């Protein structure tokens, strides 16, 4: 039987084959890479440059007949001096920090437990992973029912343990509780993802290292801190990076759950940006807003990746 690669080469029409033979390896490489580069330029780079350009104008996409004026840095000044935007930044920071802390702690704990060999291990893994298979919009909608003061299961569970009246508190209607309501729902949904990454990290640690530690009579506690944590740390940091980026742009789950309210207390930057861009139609202003967020995420991610590489090199 003919080699399929040879057969394919033979199937190349002679004129084409002659042309290719005349090209250098570098040219052929460019021919293969060019469509991808073109696509990246069209889909990523061009919109980015266009957004930066729009951010210096007063352009509004819903006023096609209006003159577009160059406003310099005015959009940036207005955004950075707007206390409402800083409060959305605070809401985002609260959401980001607490979801990451809780997801890493619970996710790592679950991974540590699942990593032990016990009966029903696979079944439990499947059950735990289930929430992340759902759509965030569905999860948001689902949790609005769980949080309902009169019929919500969450309120009844809390009431069962605390003795409080279930309808005496509203998780999504109270300014003090709503920020925690979105943290809880996101943690429920995405902890399994962190768990899976941690599990991969834990399973990558060779048994021989633990066996050597046993020979040296190291306690379980010491093994945990000197073997497990350092060796799983790059995976943990990767999980933090993924969740950080994802939650910085969190939109669907929170919109379904609280709509950014009560008041502005759960209005995250992505929700605010969407309102500015596609509800208020302040295209120039929202472009500047998007650029600021892009630079923030890009800068933080770059610093973080550098730290991650250092940890991996250790």
């Amino acid at each position, binding site marked *: 039987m003919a080699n399929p690669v040879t057969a394919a080469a033979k199937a190349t029409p002679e004129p084409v084959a002659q042309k290719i033979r005349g090209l250098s390896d570098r040219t052929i490489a460019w021919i293969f890479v060019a469509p991808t580069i073109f696509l990246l330029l069209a889909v990523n780079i061009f919109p980015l440059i266009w957004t930066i350009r729009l951010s210096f104008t007063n352009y509004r996409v819903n006023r096609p007949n209006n003159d577009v004026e160059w406003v310099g840095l005015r959009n940036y000044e207005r955004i950075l001096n707007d206390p409402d935007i800083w409060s959305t930044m605070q809401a985002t920071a609260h959401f980001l920090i607490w979801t990451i802390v809780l997801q890493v702690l619970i996710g790592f704990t679950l991974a540590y437990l699942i990593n032990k060999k016990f009966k029903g291990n696979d079944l439990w893994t499947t059950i735990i992973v289930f929430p992340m298979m759902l759509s965030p919009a569905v999860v948001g909608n689902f949790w609005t029912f769980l949080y309902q003061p009169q019929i919500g299961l969450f309120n009844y569970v809390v009431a069962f343990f605390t003795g409080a009246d279930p309808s005496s508190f509203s998780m999504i209607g109270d300014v003090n509780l709503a920020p925690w309501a979105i943290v809880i729902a996101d943690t429920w949904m995405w902890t399994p993802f962190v768990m899976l990454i941690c599990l991969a990290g834990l399973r990558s640690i060779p048994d021989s290292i633990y066996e050597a530690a046993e020979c040296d009579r190291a306690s379980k506690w010491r093994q945990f801190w000197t073997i497990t944590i350092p060796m799983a740390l790059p995976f943990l940091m990767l999980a933090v990076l993924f969740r950080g980026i994802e939650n910085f742009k969190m939109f669907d789950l929170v919109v379904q759950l609280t709509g950014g309210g*009560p008041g502005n207390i759960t209005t995250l930057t992505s929700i605010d940006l969407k309102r500015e861009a596609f509800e208020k139609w302040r295209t120039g202003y929202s472009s500047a807003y998007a650029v600021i967020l892009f630079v923030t995420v890009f800068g933080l991610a770059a610093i973080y990746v550098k730290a991650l590489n250092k940890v991996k090199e250790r």
Partner: protein
Amino acid sequence: MKTKLTCSAAAAALLATGSVAQAADLTLCWAAWDPANALVELSKDFEAQSGHNMNFEFVPWPNFADRMLNELNSGGQLCDLMIGDSQWIGGSAENGHYVKMNDFFDANGIDMGDFLPATVTGYAEWPKNTPNYWALPAYADVVGWTYRKDWFERPEIQAEFKEKYGRDLGVPATLGELKDIAEFFQGREIDGKTVYGAAIYTERGSEGITMGVTNALYGYGFEFNNPENPYEMEGFVNSAEAVAGLEFYKALYDVGTPPGSSNWYMGENIDAYKSGQVALQMNFAFIWPGVEADPNVGGGKSGYFANPAGPAGQFAQLGGQGISVVSYSENQDAALEYIKWFAQPEIQQRWWDMGGASAMRAVVEAPGFADSQPYAQTFLDSMAIVKDFWAEPAFAELLLSMQERIHNYVIAGDGTAQEALDGLVKDWTETFEDEGKL
């Protein structure tokens, strides 16, 4: 603009002479709600008469504005006919999304004087109070109240209410009385179930809380601007009377609404009412046919009343929409044919009979109309006291500022009513400055 006018004039002439156009596939865009289903049924008559096919694109209310304004702003050709919200009229006229209807109306004998004046101003005119028409009033709607008549009529409840407030329990004449009733029912045991006072609009994301709070603000003396000097808002939006109106709405929310109702709009209010959670609900009149037909709360168990008066008068928030022809449509002739068909008195009558809300005077002022449904008189009373939100091209920005300021104060309890309205003046001033109107 000249081309569009020529187009609409040509279409008008074509229709007036009775020329038969080729069968077209028309798409009508509207919100996904009960009246839309009635319109699908009604439109079968148009299909049979004209030979055109009708398609419908219905979007749920919370996403309706987003979806359809995106469509219009991008010059999309999805919709030939648009039943757009009343506040869109300014932007849609100025940005060329809608076909101007004056020539077409003149050519086909459609007289705006045949429709309720408030609906003509609210749904069709831009600039307001000028004879420039961009839509035909299609669905008359207004915020009103539904109440549990069967609960109100119970002797033990009546006695307790009288003892507490020194007056009979009945339809409230003032906003203050309304609050008393909501407070009275709050947390009360009825038939072994805890019930609450009133379901009011509190929704944050689209337009909910604004459509609710204005029913209090208007009655207390709030004005969008100086009636003598447009866009002068200081002392009108944030007047002492307006502040009192906003404080009233917050007090109503605090003492008389179900727990967890911090983000409620039409759907949530209907659900709360039909499931027997509340004694009163604020909602647009479109829900009334559904209430009457409901096995739990219909059939005489519910009553209806217009928004009660405040210290400065009795007003209600206008809802409803006009039907327009989208200027990007390639089927403008057929779309105009639909409007001509829809403007006929007998079609308008059938529209009302099927659960729609006609704005045509021949229908709503006909003898017997007020008794045609238990809510018909309330509908008429309410339509007589309407006021509407800004219909400026920048309405979306104006609306979102109000949503934010009002929700922050009423629901989140952030700051004072005065601060909320002062902030609103600041936001709106900024918007009108950006618009070049200040």
